[in-house]
């Protein structure tokens, strides 16, 4: 009876998952289409993020910038006709469902290609700040502490369970999607709870019991990887899930890590709020503020690619706000290319277009088809009509101007190519 009900339920669910999967796939394809507006946003977002990644001084800044852009891409897409065109007419989605599908698709098209560069940057920031070393030192202190000193009151995971936990955490580290990482973290917590119950079956454990065991477990894990994972999940997760179970156990993991960082065997106590914990309040405040700014389409940050001094050469992706004028964009170019005397020209289908300094840059960009225009920053007395049409008739070269990559971009290139392959496998 129950079996049959389960079977029916799973048939229904499979049907739903099929629909959802198809929409996810379509959104990912849209994100890769250089001739779609959304595809251009995603491409430029990636270029902008890769270019500016090394400029952030803290990991939180770096991650919050990415999350903010993702949230903006999401709000654009949810209001766009581009998404409407992808929906199947006979299949109704609730707003929540649609948002979660878009979130998953964005993770795949935005985060997956960025995951490796993000981790490299995070690692560098932490190594430079010395926090990796500190963590490693304290890890050995916690490792040598007795379970009593850690405050453990229940049974703890034995070797086979530790093995399982380690597999889960390794898998977590490999994942690019914050949501999938969190699911693996929850599975890890489940294993820990099961082990705690061995000594006392049927008893429900609260945070008093759980946190010390969590510390015991984490001290026997790859802490430096986990530290990056926790940060990645906390800052990049879907902001609408911040009240949920995943968020709770993520917070607990973060807490256990912080506690290990400040662990003092003599006192077995952490009286002082660590700087990081104090900061976390402010970081959270900031995240809250950032995410509040979402949805309003007017606030969606857009991007422009500018070449200098001629088409195809030295492309830079600039973030552009809706109210920015051509004059302001010219000033931004001057700063980015470090050329005070150059001027900005706008070409459409290889023809120079007249543009007033007071025109809004985004209005100019949106006046033509994606791929059919270009911005060139060049010496004033050297007008520079493009030699080639920019818009490819056959889609798509996923990376613009591959032979002109900067050293920094070349380092990233293999990752991107690999991603292109896996996207096809999706």
């Amino acid at each position, binding site marked *: 009876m129950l079996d049959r009900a389960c079977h029916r339920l799973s048939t229904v669910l499979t049907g739903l998952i099929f629909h959802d999967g198809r929409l996810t796939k379509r959104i990912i394809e849209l994100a890769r289409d250089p001739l779609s507006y959304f595809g251009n946003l995603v491409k430029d977002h990636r270029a902008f993020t890769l270019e500016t990644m090394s400029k952030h001084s803290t990991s939180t800044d770096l991650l919050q910038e990415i999350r903010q852009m993702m949230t903006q891409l999401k709000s654009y897409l949810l209001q766009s006709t581009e998404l409407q065109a992808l929906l199947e007419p006979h299949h109704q989605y609730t707003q929540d469902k649609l948002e979660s599908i878009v979130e998953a698709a964005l993770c795949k098209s935005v985060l997956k290609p960025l995951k490796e560069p993000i981790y490299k940057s995070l690692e560098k920031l932490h190594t430079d700040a010395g926090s990796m070393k500190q963590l490693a030192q304290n890890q050995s202190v916690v490792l040598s502490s007795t379970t009593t000193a850690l405050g453990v009151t229940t049974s703890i995971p034995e070797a086979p369970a530790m093995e399982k936990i380690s597999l889960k955490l390794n898998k977590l580290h490999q994942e690019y999607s914050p949501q999938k990482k969190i699911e693996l973290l*929850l599975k890890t917590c489940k294993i820990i709870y099961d082990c705690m119950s061995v000594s006392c079956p049927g008893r*429900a454990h609260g945070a*008093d019991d*759980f946190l010390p065991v969590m510390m015991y477990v984490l001290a026997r894990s790859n802490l430096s990887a986990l530290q990056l994972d926790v940060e990645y999940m906390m800052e990049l997760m879907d902001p609408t899930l911040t*009240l949920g179970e995943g968020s*709770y156990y993520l917070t607990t993991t973060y807490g256990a890590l912080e*506690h290990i960082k400040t662990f003092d065997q003599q006192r077995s106590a952490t009286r002082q709020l660590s700087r990081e914990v104090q900061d*976390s309040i402010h970081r*959270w405040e900031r995240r809250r503020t950032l995410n509040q700014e979402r949805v309003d389409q007017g606030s969606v940050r857009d991007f422009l690619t500018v070449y200098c001094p001629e088409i195809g050469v030295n492309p830079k992706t600039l973030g552009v706000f809706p109210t920015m004028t051509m004059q302001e964009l010219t000033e931004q170019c001057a700063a980015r290319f470090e050329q005070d005397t150059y001027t900005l020209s706008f070409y459409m289908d290889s023809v120079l277009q007249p543009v007033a300094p007071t025109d809004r840059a985004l209005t100019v960009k949106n006046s033509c088809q994606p791929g059919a225009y270009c911005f060139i920053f060049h010496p004033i007395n050297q007008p520079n009509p493009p030699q080639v049409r920019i818009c490819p008739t056959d889609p798509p070269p996923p990376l613009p101007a591959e032979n002109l990559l900067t050293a920094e971009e070349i380092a990233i290139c293999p990752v991107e190519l690999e991603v292109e392959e896996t996207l096809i496998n999706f």
Partner: protein
Amino acid sequence: MATAGAAGSSGRTYSFKVVLLGEGCVGKTSLVLRYCENKFNDKHITTLQASFLTKKLNITGKRVNLAIWDTAGQERFHALGPIYYRDSNGAILVYDVTDEDSFQKVKNWVKELRKMLGNEICLCIVGNKIDLDKDRNVSVEDAESYAESVGAKHYHTSAKLNKGIEELFLDLCKRMMETAQAEERAKGNGASQSASSRRGVQIVDDEPQATPAGGCCSTG
């Protein structure tokens, strides 16, 4: 699912985060387990555990989702408090009526919460274990006047006898709803979907509010 009778006709869904604070051994875990004991609540992988629990309510026609976050009460973990309470709409501060020291700890938490979060957070001070009233070490008057002096509400509960718990949570929810509504009004009511990210208060849709039979109807 269990609350199907109430769903559908109401206009809004509020989502609130409530943090549980208090020394170890004051009975935080039993308190919240008592409240959330609900055979239909099987969605979470850690169902049998008490660190994170959820509860769905229906209060005067409005749906409320509660997420209850337990914290480790041992002194050694005190410094981790902020990462748990930072985005809470409400806090339940539990002490043991037979343990004067645990009441002092509650006072420390109140001070910290007011300092960090101001008056945005609804505070409940809860004297638990009133089944042990004969061993009481914290006087009712002291506790109640202290609560009043800091803008908190005071409750007496017994997790063992299941006394006072329902009232505590229901009352807290009503206060959090009032706070959320006041916040919405302050923002000028012009917000559409974009209000949803504000402090976990989610406005799911804007149907006119039909009001079914009042009160809380989700507990068994």
